[in-house]
């Protein structure tokens, strides 16, 4: 995968030729393969799945993919540092339960509390991983279980139904023809792209995952960066949980965000962010999430049981990770 360049000084003459040749591929970077796969998948479905190519269905895919994208963007940053966050699905449930149970104090308070809950859960992950140096997967696995339990405790194991137009706008509102959640998704993706490209935080994330020792020697605050990354992942999961809740008009602590970690990880690795860290392809992650959503939708439309899509997604993750695994020297 990695184009190894021997220790030869590139000649000045070749300098102009090469970037020009590599440009179309380089624009999408490592997500190039994913983009091709998405195109093939859409084309195949358009040809063989009835009604797939209808405008309403494509709109629908976009609607449903947005919460996956939100979570997967956070996951992209976590994975870029070389970590993993398995707790995102449960954090969605916590935010959903917190938000729904506080709705009587107003939509604003509910959203703020839900986001804060996600942020706090993520920061806890980050602090344990950064300060105690425990493997990320075990910390976030523990929170995966705890979080689901907390959500159930808050909602007392019951479905919380509500009527609150202001809050429901988060998941059902439209600005002109565009659904609110698609706007939120676009804003988050835009912010993440900007953060990765233009902020020192983004640099620190990539440097940390690329070579932690070198980053530390160069003065990168490795511990705080980890805390922030996991906190962001938690907050984005919280946001996704709130949107899902608003869309359904009810909070179901047992169902919200179930197996979301899988979709998010799949979107990230399929989108070209390697599990070993050091790269963050936010655009690729969006493409990866779309691939996962198209699979789910087409399975639904062809009336294949949902369960089979789990098997397919697991296989996709394994293949993507296998292809990207670091080559031994």
């Amino acid at each position, binding site marked *: 995968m990695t184009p190894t360049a021997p220790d030869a000084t590139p000649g000045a003459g070749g300098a102009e030729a090469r970037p020009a040749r590599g440009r179309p591929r380089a624009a999408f970077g490592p997500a190039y393969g994913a983009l091709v796969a998405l195109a093939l998948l859409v084309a195949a479905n358009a040809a063989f799945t009835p009604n797939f190519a209808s405008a309403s269905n494509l709109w629908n895919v976009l609607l449903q993919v947005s919460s996956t994208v939100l979570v997967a963007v956070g996951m992209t940053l976590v994975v870029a540092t070389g970590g*993993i966050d*398995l707790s995102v699905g449960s954090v969605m449930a916590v935010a959903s339960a917190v938000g729904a149970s506080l709705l009587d104090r107003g939509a604003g308070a509910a959203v703020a509390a839900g986001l804060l809950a996600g942020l706090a859960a993520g920061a806890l992950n980050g602090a*344990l991983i950064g300060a*105690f*140096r*425990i*493997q990320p*997967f*075990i*910390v976030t*696995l*523990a*929170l*995966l*279980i*705890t*979080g*689901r*339990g*907390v959500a*159930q*405790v808050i909602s007392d*194991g019951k479905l919380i139904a509500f009527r609150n137009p202001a809050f429901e706008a988060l998941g059902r509102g439209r600005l002109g023809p565009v659904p609110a959640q698609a706007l939120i998704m676009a804003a988050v993706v835009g912010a993440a792209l900007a953060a990765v490209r233009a902020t020192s935080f983004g640099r620190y994330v990539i440097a940390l995952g690329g070579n932690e020792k070198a980053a530390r020697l160069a003065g990168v605050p490795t511990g705080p960066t980890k805390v922030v990354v996991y906190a962001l992942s938690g907050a984005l999961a919280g946001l996704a949980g709130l949107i899902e809740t608003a869309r359904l008009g009810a909070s179901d602590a047992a169902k919200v965000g179930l*197996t979301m970690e*899988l979709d998010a*990880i799949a979107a990230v690795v399929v989108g070209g962010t390697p*599990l070993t860290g050091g790269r963050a392809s936010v655009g690729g992650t969006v493409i990866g999430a779309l691939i996962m959503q198209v699979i789910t939708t087409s399975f639904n439309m062809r009336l294949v*049981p*949902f*369960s*089979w*899509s*789990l*098997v397919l*997604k*697991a*296989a996709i*993750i*394994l293949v993507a*990770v*296998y292809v990207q*695994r670091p080559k*031994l020297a």
Partner: protein
Amino acid sequence: MKAPRLAALLRQEGAPLALVAVCVFASLRYDAFLTPENLLNVLRQNSMPGLVALGMTFVILTGGIDLSVGSLVAVAGVLAANLAGRGTAPALAAGVGAAALLGLVNGVVIAKARVQPFITTLAMMIAARGLALAATGEQSVRVDRLSEGFPWLGRGLIGPVPVPVVVLALAFGLGWLVLGHTRFGRHVYALGDNEDAARLMGLNVASVTIGVYALSGALAGLAGVLLASRLGAGQPVAGTGWELDAIASVVVGGTLLTGGQGGAGSTLVGVLLLGVLFNLFNLEGTISPWWQWVLRGLFLLVVVVVQSRLGARRAAAAATA
């Protein structure tokens, strides 16, 4: 020197001490605790998760992790329930065999394709759950009413002792023997101790790795068959979250997540400690199942943090020695 010694004591004897303390507390507070019925009940309830934890012990001793065990419980249970009408032996063999095979796949992917254990077994966790759900149409598979021997596996008694408890005891006895007194067992420890060294010393790392994941799968399968027999049905959602309990039991018992230290005995203590704790919650009667999930997760987190602190202190002590 005092602190490291205390740390060592806590690490080695902490779990047994805690178990004794919790039992003493429980028997003082609840008359119902120290009765044969209750104790056997605790053992029976924990026998199937205990089997899974035993398999997890092997995996964690090599420094790996197996997140797929819960789903393998479901696969084995569904398959066994389906075949129960054709006899107990085929049902048992098919359930255990299928789970062992999927575990073997985990091992091969980890050892040969060199994909991290947690991502490999996470994928298997999802895929196997999907298989179980898809194959059953998301419905429970009832055990054939005419099958005679099969229900005995989960519900029968040998003397006063439930069959699953006997199976658990036998499995842990065998596990102790294998880990402590066979080459395979010693090589499991060697692998988790220092994989590079083990390889340089000429150990066949791949075969040991594949072996432990296959074994973990087989034990999860056995647990799944017993569960299906107990419930009279194979449920495709059975075993959800069991990987967490298994990891918690192993770690609470004192086996290091980094591998190389611990054993079947410490896992048994961990299983019992968790089992008695949750029995206490039940006796108390006021704690909802949701709170139990919260406590489960927090408990694991605390134990892992404490273990990492103890480990760090020991490393520091070793460095200055």
